[in-house]
């Protein structure tokens, strides 16, 4: 019989699943740990001098301005679908007058923050992850550290701040355009009374609902920028990612999937706690 080559092979057969499980758990813990340290360093980096104002503007332009078109069309189409669907459902009960409140509440509390975060993850999050991943594998981040330049202050923190500023603003845009889409479909196409649409909205939407939407958009912004930049930063430490260009592509996919799932999970958690 050949010599065991791995730790698992040296164990009796019945113990091996435990070893694998423990191994996975340890990896998960390490991963959470490094992502936690990453988040702390990125936040500290925000307060380090000199702050890179021009980089912040560049990132605002990329994450914010660059996402306006995609947010506009997503919002318009989902608002119009909401208007149509809402109309058909409410029509059955003769409650078309509630359409304005249904559309606006759904958008402000749920769809606005969630869909904005998902669209920004897909458009800007993936790009940030790939950019940082490539900088990592081509030793550009090591080069920064060797020049005694904090990579967080220089590279990561401006992205954090830009996302925290842009995503809530994009969410607000999403809400407005979405409500306009609902108005187009409900009032202009299906003939719901415009006064009823807007007065229903005004009466049902409270400050609390808006605050909930805003809190969500901030949390989602933090989640998506944290996960996307963090995965890129640790591209070489992620198990199963491989090496070189392949690792960047795999980790980018992983970052988009992970941040989308976390947005959806946190959506539920925040709603459950704050509603």
């Amino acid at each position: 019989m050949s010599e065991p080559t791995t730790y698992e092979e040296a164990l009796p057969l019945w113990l091996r699943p435990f070893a694998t499980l423990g191994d996975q758990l340890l990896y998960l813990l390490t991963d959470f740990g490094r992502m936690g340290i990453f988040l702390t360093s990125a936040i500290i980096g925000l307060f380090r001098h000199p702050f890179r104002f021009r980089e912040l503007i560049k990132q605002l332009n990329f994450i914010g301005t660059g996402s306006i078109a995609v947010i506009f069309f997503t919002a318009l189409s989902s608002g119009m679908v909401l208007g149509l669907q809402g109309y058909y459902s409410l029509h059955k009960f003769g409650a078309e007058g509630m359409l304005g409140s249904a559309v606006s509440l759904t958008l402000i509390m749920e769809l606005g923050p969630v869909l904005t975060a998902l669209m920004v993850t897909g458009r800007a999050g993936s790009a940030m992850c790939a950019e940082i991943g490539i900088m990592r594998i081509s030793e550009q981040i090591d080069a920064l550290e060797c020049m005694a330049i904090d990579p967080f202050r220089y590279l990561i923190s401006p992205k954090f701040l830009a996302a925290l500023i842009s995503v809530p603003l994009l969410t607000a845009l999403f809400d407005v355009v979405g409500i306009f889409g609902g108005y187009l479909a409900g009032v202009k196409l299906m003939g719901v009374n415009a006064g009823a649409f807007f007065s229903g909205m005004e009466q049902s939407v409270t400050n609390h609902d808006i605050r909930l939407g805003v809190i969500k958009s901030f949390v989602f912004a933090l989640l998506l920028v944290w996960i996307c930049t963090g995965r890129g930063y640790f591209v070489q430490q992620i198990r199963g990612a491989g090496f070189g260009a392949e690792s960047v592509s795999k980790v980018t996919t992983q970052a988009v999937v992970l941040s989308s799932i976390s947005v959806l999970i946190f959506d539920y958690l925040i709603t459950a706690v704050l509603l």
Partner: protein
Amino acid sequence: MSTKQPQDPIAIEFDHVYKSFGERARRHTVLNDISFTIPRGLTTVIAGGSGQGKSVTLKLILGLLYPDSGRVLVDGINVPSLSKRELRRLRTRFGVLFQGSALFDSLTVFENVALPLRERTRLSEEEIRARVMETLEQLELRGHEEKFPAQLSGGMKKRVGLARALQLEPEIVLFDEPTTGLDPIMTQEIYQLFERLQKKLGYTAVIVSHDIPGVFDLADQIILLNHGEVDVFNDVNEIVHSKKQYIREFAKMTMGDLFARS
């Protein structure tokens, strides 16, 4: 933390350093109880085959990796025991030329070279421009300052990387495989440039390379890494006439013609 006089003839010292990678049984020992010293103001070449821990040695000096045990001393200061802040201060004394040059893709040649000055000094834009242009002139890069790294040849990238590494007037310059991917003529040019600059600026140079025996011409000291072991030589003849069988075999394999001549 003990600090020696900066005039100590030893710039860098490895003291019983172990370093391994991988988890548990898959663990692979790269450096096995390594001890050597690197003299100040001279050129030391660290040579060895692929995967023998040459780049790891550089990363240990820079504090980008930590040894499993042992001490890595720079001017008598143990690098692994430094805090982040102290490490950052120590790194300002290093210049590093990376294997792939590690230039920032999104910055021009000028911006790349100016980066350490802009970020680490309080010089005015005019002073920075003057200094960068002077270095670019020295390295024959004048006229390329507005190009992006992707528009440069391999040899030019190396020179830009070197220009960037030298901006903060480092005491120790580390070169990671400086001639990988260059043709023999370019390699010779780069070596001549290294020699000229080292003589002029007087820094301690540590060159990691597998370009054997070409790189030995530059060396005041040669450190051979082989299967986690280390051997130190003063010149190439010592390698060829080594008493150790595996060193002679290594010499025969890597520099057959030179070996035949001796």
